[in-house]
């Protein structure tokens, strides 16, 4: 699979282990971006053949996403947006708008994008679901707090895979619990899409970004339950309506109603071929990711949680995050460190030091992980002399 990523041919000297932040790009995405830019037209209502060609790609992209995720009505369920941050924001706005008696239950492994939009919504109560010792959501804690909560509406917001823990939350069980309380469910799937198999049916909102799935930057998707099509869009504007008068408007009846303005067609144009590759290679990608998690668990020291997929984090034994990232960068090894957009959890785990994160993709080799963990040990030995 690695030979389908031009980055590695162009930069054979670099070891890229920051795929949880952004993945490298599949060759077809690069080619298709160029094709679009040399045949650029707008989708929807163009009336000319170039516009019709882009329209076809747009609809094909949604159909392919449906095929990939196993959903039958993607034109009604897939909303294109700028990325998961917008997707989660929009989901939270739709879920909380005109609600005045609701409580929120957020996974304790949350990314900032999953919780910040709630801060200004006026909830009765916000409960952060505890983590177990192995770093997954403690669903008995969720059930206990749901039982006690008296609010009319309950909203459960969770990550499918923690971007700090690298562990897989039990979405099947969360869906079951949510069903018992008729709760609205929001899933941040940024670290699970393209890495592990999940059944996302039955959740109200599922958000992810394509730049983490070997695709283009600036494009995300929000998968919605069709019942939310009854709601007015969070961002009303051109492209979301079927008719407008001076005083009234009629919104579209499919997911396009939540995509006002010209969508990121340059990025959407690349999805059909990317999705063909993802669908064709799905079992290999999942197996490869799982195998690398085993390797990382064997090599990593001082990791708070055993990785199940995609990434592993560790607390630096000596020095600071910056010392490690600079020293590894000196060896052309790209890893990430800091609060990982999950500051409360990272502060708790690391006693305010921050965490180092090694993350991988379909193109990563076992040798690259070995190189990185050897370099981390070398860096630690060098730093320990001076702190």
């Amino acid at each position, binding site marked *: 699979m690695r030979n389908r990523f031009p980055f590695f041919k162009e930069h054979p000297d670099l070891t890229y282990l920051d795929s949880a932040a952004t993945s490298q790009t599949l060759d077809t995405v690069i080619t298709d971006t160029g094709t679009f830019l040399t045949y650029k037209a707008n989708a929807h209502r163009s009336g000319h053949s170039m516009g019709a060609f882009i329209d076809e790609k747009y609809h094909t992209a949604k159909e392919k996403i449906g095929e990939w995720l196993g959903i039958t009505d993607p034109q009604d369920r897939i909303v294109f947006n700028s990325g998961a941050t917008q997707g989660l924001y929009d989901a939270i706005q739709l879920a909380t708008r005109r609600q005045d008696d609701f409580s929120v239950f957020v996974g304790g492994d949350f990314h900032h994008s999953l919780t910040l939009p709630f801060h200004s919504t006026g909830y009765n109560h916000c409960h952060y679901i505890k983590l177990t010792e192995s770093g997954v959501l403690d669903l008995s804690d969720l059930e206990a707090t749901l039982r006690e909560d008296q609010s009319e509406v309950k909203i459960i917001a969770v990550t499918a895979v923690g971007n700090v823990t690298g562990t897989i939350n039990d979405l099947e069980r969360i869906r079951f619990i949510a069903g018992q309380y008729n709760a609205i469910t929001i899933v941040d799937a940024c670290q699970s899409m393209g890495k592990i198999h999940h059944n996302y049916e039955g959740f109200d909102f599922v958000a992810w970004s394509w730049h983490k799935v070997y695709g283009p930057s600036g494009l995300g998707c929000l998968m919605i339950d069709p019942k939310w099509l009854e709601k007015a869009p969070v961002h009303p504007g051109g492209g979301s309506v079927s008719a407008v008068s001076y005083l009234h408007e009629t919104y579209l009846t499919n997911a396009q109603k939540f995509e006002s303005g010209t969508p990121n067609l340059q990025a959407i144009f690349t999805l059909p071929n990317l999705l063909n590759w993802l669908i064709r290679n799905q079992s290999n990608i999942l197996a490869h990711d799982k195998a690398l998690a085993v390797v990382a668990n064997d090599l990593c020291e001082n990791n708070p949680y055993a990785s199940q997929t995609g990434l592993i984090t560790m607390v630096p034994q000596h020095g*600071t995050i910056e010392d490690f990232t600079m020293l590894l*960068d*000196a*060896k052309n090894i790209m890893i990430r460190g800091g609060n990982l957009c999950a500051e409360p959890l990272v502060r708790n785990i690391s006693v305010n030091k921050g965490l180092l994160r090694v993350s991988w993709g379909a193109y990563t080799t076992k040798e690259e992980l070995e190189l990185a963990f050897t370099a981390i040990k*070398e*860096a630690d030995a*060098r730093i320990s*002399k*001076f702190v």
Partner: protein
Amino acid sequence: MLEFQNLYEDLFELEEAMDKYEFIMEYGTTASSVQEFERNSNDLIKGCTSSLWVKYSNSQFTCQADSAIVKGLAGMICDWYNQATNTQRQSFSINTLTDIGLAPLLSMGRQNGVNNLINTMKVLETGEA
């Protein structure tokens, strides 16, 4: 006349980037400008990805940092500044680091931090003057 190149020539004899960083970390343990002082937000350099504190009194800069590398780098800059002539101080900028080959060790974000350090030092110096 004090030359930055002379002061840190040992650094540039090292070929391995990790060795250069180790030299910088070691420098931080001996730099005369690296001093213990009470860290407060007024002395924190803004725009650094890592926390760095710089104080100025009696025409001398002192610094502190959590990161061993940042401490060494800041110690180099403060040591140099403390010994430099007025003319050298006036012409000192991020480009001086680029000229002597230190810039490749600094990512763009860290170059911004060093730039903020240099600008802050000039403001502090002017303020006391």
